[in-house]
């Protein structure tokens, strides 16, 4: 039975979601059904996580021919790179079903479809299969924002959809280019990522294909300056969708870079890593600065999320095992912290009818449990040691310093930038005086506490005992970095010379 | 020599007729000049020793098709006031000539590229009814057969479009 675990994790939610759409069932029933399905997925995910041994290779493989004339296969598998992303998407979904009770049936169905397709994108080892899931996962998002979103949802929906599809279509052309190149070099068709690693690309088209791949992922992550869809979409989307977008979908962008770009385009990756890491830090700073000026809490979190994604992306481009592991770890950490913050904001909006920072105040006195949870998630998001956020951020900065001193310094400023807007928001919302709107804010109910508690515990656990996670992902990161290095050592050497002169300029 | 003379006469006539078609405002005049063109073309076919086509051009084209057109023009009783004003016609003509000149010059260039060999004398059977008929029914049977289908479609179509209709009530 566990042989097909991944397939079940993918198709159980998708089929359940489709069935939910097709058959007339009530809202409550669909919520419960969704909850059950996501819990099943969660249990399978936990089982899978526990059974996973950190050897660096793929496990839980499924591989069947699909379209043989082009060597496209139905290939699934999990390794250290995808493990945490997979776990994130398995762990976080039940919360959504448990918290929000006021949505329609279609919403729950779309959530399930989103979950299934995201897991599919995470597990796929075949480029085409990945692409298919990658596109499918946008559809439920599109419908969720469009149907259940805020007042300005239409432009936001269009922008996210067309923008991201434009990016993915570029990737489509690039991935076909990769497949054709493989065919030209080895005489056989395949889109299996492991075999494509053997490919030896060069020349202008390879650079073009690399940038087309990166365009898709850069838009999804989103990297500066391709982030402009993000604030609108995150703000207008219903909370659970924002949660899914920020906690999981953005991460699949980063994951895609690691899984699909690095093995194929080692040379181009090493060549342009500095450019993209610069985009990452600039985006981190830019979005972080923009966050301080936001009045809408959700929009602020949206910018904060973009800012964090920038730093996660930096970790990927630094091409050393610390930074890469840090990014992989931070993927999960960010999902638990910022993602949960989005849920909290959603709760506040649901209870008080406003998420405008200026309208709120003094919630900490009314709802100590809520405030504590919020504070823990917030502190994780600013990277306080002892929470999940620290490990990843530290590793990324550490790696970035090795990669390039200046980038390292800029990446380090995330320590400051993040804390500025977060504290500012926390002050306005949780401290200061209560008003009539916040006076009636009720603290978390027992069921809600039980929902959030695991994640809060997870945030702490990932900060205090991160090694349990890192042992599973680190070997894969080692392999991945090793893959870049043999071919590109000479290219990289000049960029990794440590230049401490850069780093002490701000005294 | 006479063949060349005839050629020039017919070609001038046909070009004049075609120009008349393009220039005359009333379709009736246009139709009449088109008939001139067609008859001249028939003459040219004869000069090219395509006897059957010469006959068919006269009967089918100049005869049947053009009389059908004339018939319809008269049937509809087109008055001058019914005709479009076409005030800017000459601008369109000039513009059209400018537009077409690249096409025409291209085609003429193409035609000029043919080696200018004098036509050889062909046998008397060339272009006769029997000879063409043989070719038609031996080599070109399929097109001939499916032309029947085409005519059938055209027939049904004319009925459907212009005839009385029994509606499905």
């Amino acid at each position, binding site marked *: 039975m566990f042989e097909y675990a991944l397939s079940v994790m993918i198709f159980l939610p998708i089929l359940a979601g489709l069935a939910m*759409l097709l058959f007339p069932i009530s809202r409550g029933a669909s919520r419960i059904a969704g909850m059950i399905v996501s819990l099943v997925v969660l249990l399978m995910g936990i089982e899978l996580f526990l059974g996973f041994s950190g050897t660096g290779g793929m496990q839980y493989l499924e591989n069947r021919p699909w*379209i043989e*004339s*082009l060597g496209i296969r139905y290939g699934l598998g999990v390794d250290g790179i995808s493990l945490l992303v997979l776990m994130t998407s398995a762990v976080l979904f039940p919360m959504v079903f448990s918290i929000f009770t006021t949505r329609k049936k279609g919403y729950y169905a779309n959530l399930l479809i989103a979950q299934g397709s995201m897991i599919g994108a995470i597990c796929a080892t075949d480029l*085409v299969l990945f*692409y*298919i*899931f990658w*596109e*499918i996962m946008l*559809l439920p998002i*599109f*419908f969720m924002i*469009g*149907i259940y979103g805020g007042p300005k949802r*239409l432009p936001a*929906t*269009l922008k996210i*959809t*067309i923008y991201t*599809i*434009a990016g993915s*279509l*570029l990737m*489509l*052309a690039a991935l*076909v*280019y990769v*497949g*054709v190149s493989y*065919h030209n070099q080895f005489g056989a068709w395949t889109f299996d990522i492991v075999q494509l690693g053997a490919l030896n690309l060069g020349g202008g088209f390879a650079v*073009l294909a690399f940038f*087309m791949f990166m365009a898709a992922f850069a838009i999804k992550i989103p990297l500066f300056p391709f982030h402009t869809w993000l604030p609108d979409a995150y703000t207008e989307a219903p909370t659970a969708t924002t949660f899914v977008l920020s906690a999981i979908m953005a991460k699949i962008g980063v994951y895609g870079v690691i899984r699909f770009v690095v093995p194929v385009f080692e040379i181009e990756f090493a060549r342009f890593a500095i450019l993209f890491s610069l985009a990452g830090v600039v985006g981190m700073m830019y979005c972080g600065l923009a966050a301080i000026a936001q009045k809408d809490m959700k929009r602020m979190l949206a910018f904060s999320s973009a800012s964090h994604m920038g730093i996660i992306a930096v970790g990927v481009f630094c091409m050393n095992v610390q930074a890469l592991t840090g990014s992989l770890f931070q993927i999960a950490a960010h999902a638990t912290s910022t993602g949960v913050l989005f849920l909290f904001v959603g709760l506040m909006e649901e209870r008080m009818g406003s998420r405008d920072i200026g309208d709120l105040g003094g919630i900490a006195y009314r709802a100590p449990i809520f405030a504590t949870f919020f504070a823990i998630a917030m502190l994780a998001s600013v990277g306080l040691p002892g929470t999940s956020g620290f490990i990843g951020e530290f590793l990324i900065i550490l790696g970035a310093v090795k990669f390039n001193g200046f980038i390292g310094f800029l990446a380090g400023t995330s320590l400051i930038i993040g804390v500025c807007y977060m504290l500012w928001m926390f002050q306005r919302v949780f401290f200061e005086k209560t008003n009539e709107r916040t006076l009636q804010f009720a603290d978390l109910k027992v069921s809600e506490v039980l929902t959030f508690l695991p994640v809060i515990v997870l945030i702490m656990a990932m900060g205090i005992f991160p090694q349990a996670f890192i042992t599973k992902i680190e070997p894969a990161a080692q392999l991945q970095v090793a893959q870049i290095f043999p071919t590109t050592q000479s290219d990289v050497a000049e960029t990794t010379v440590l230049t401490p002169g850069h780093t002490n300029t701000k005294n | 020599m006479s063949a060349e003379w005839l050629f020039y006469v017919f070609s001038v006539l046909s070009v004049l007729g075609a120009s008349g078609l393009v220039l005359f405002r009333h379709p009736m005049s246009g139709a009449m000049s088109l008939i001139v063109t067609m008859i001249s073309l028939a003459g040219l076919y004869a000069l090219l020793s395509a006897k059957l086509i010469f006959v068919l051009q006269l009967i089918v084209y100049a005869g049947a098709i053009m009389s059908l057109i004339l018939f319809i023009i008269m049937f509809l009783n087109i008055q001058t006031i019914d005709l479009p004003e076409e005030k800017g016609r000459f601008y369109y003509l000039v513009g059209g000539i400018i537009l077409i000149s690249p096409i025409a010059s*291209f085609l003429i260039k*193409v*035609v000029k*590229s*043919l080696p200018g060999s004098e036509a050889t004398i062909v046998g008397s059977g060339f272009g006769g009814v029997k000879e063409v008929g043989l070719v038609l029914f031996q*080599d*070109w*049977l*399929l*097109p001939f057969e*499916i*032309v029947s*289908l*085409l005519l*059938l*479609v*055209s027939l*049904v*179509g004319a*009925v*459907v*479009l212009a005839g009385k*209709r*029994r*509606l*499905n*009530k």
Partner: protein
Amino acid sequence: MHDFLSFLPFLIIGAGAILLMLLSAFEKIQVEIASFVSMGFFGAAFFAQLLVGCGPEASLFAKVFNGMLVSSNFTMVAGLIILGCGFFTAVSSHSYFKVNLFCTLEFYCIMMFAACGMLLLTMAQELITAFIALEIMSLSIYILVGYDRANVTATEAILKYLILGAFAGAFFTMGTALIYGGAATTKFVEISTAISSGSASQPLLLAGVFFVFVALLFKAAAFPFHAWVIDVYEGASAPVTGFMATALKTAVFAVFANFLALSGELHSGWITFLFWVSVLTMFGGNLVAIGQSSLKRMLAASGIVHSGYLLIALVAISADHFTGSAIGYYLAAYAVSTLGIFAALSYLGGEGEKRATFDDFKGLAKVRPYSAAAITVFLLSMAGIPPTAGFMGKFYIITSAISAGQTALAVLLVVSSAFSMWYYLRLIINMYFHEAEDSFESIGSPLAGAGTLALVVCVFAIGLYPIVL
């Protein structure tokens, strides 16, 4: 025997057409019956085609027809698509004519004649045969376009189509004449040998092929010969538009591909030309589509874009071992989704097609969720979103383009598909993200629902199990 079997679908359809023509003389026969009859014939021909299958390329009745008809895997696939289109058009006509009462028996008869022309066109390996087949098809379609005589827009549509179509036909004739002048023959095989032996006159062939291309590009609605298609699609009734958009395009591209593939030399000489035409077609089509408010006009314009994609596939065919698989697959994928959309339009358009614009479909999902879902599936397929057939089609075209070294075209293709997202999404947005203003009542026909469902299944089936390849 094989010749006969391969020819059988054509015979079945022709027989059906003539049968219906004869039946139309009888007052008693209802239009509905005619629709069932035509469905039956299309279905029978479809299965005949499917069962016959096809081995290697074979000339049909070589002695009698002088190699003017050739059947191959590609023609079989094209034939299947055309017959399928005919079947589903009959299905959607069935429901369409329940509210729009201008139908007579001849409608189905002419539709089947059109299918005859198309089938011939796919198999034609000779220019004048192709021309006649093209004219059979075109004349039938003209008639279908203008079938609603009481409707002035339909009349306008037929006028425009007829004038421009005949204009293009004249070019085809001239092109044939020039090719005949250049190669002394009009048969594809002999043209090919003439080219390879060097006995043909290059300039004449160039001009001739150019004119033939012009006519075919016109029929395929390539830029800049696209202007008619938008007006004609709007003027014609929805099932006819669907038929035109799918079956006609299939037939035209089939003959186009056959013609191009006749000689590698010919093909390679025209790559630059086709390259630019396809690029202009894709982007021109997108730009036309963007501003449209009528659904049919948008679909017409998107048809232009899809023609552009197919032209890319034509650029990328390999004349040496031509299989046409990418073209065939894409045509099938495109046909299924387009038919689906037009079936839905036929069904939901209401009397006199009163629901025709984007705005008219606001809130459809609230009232008729299943219809809206089906339309969404079709639109996504046209937009090329996985896992639908449209995606795989696009995938194959990109693959073949890159394999043929046309990476730039592949990139332009994806850019163009990104642009095309806007107008497909616009309809989805209108259907889902707005409140319903209309009750969308329509005369229920179980057939329409079944047909749409079958098409939805086809969209996914073709997408997930691309057996054509």
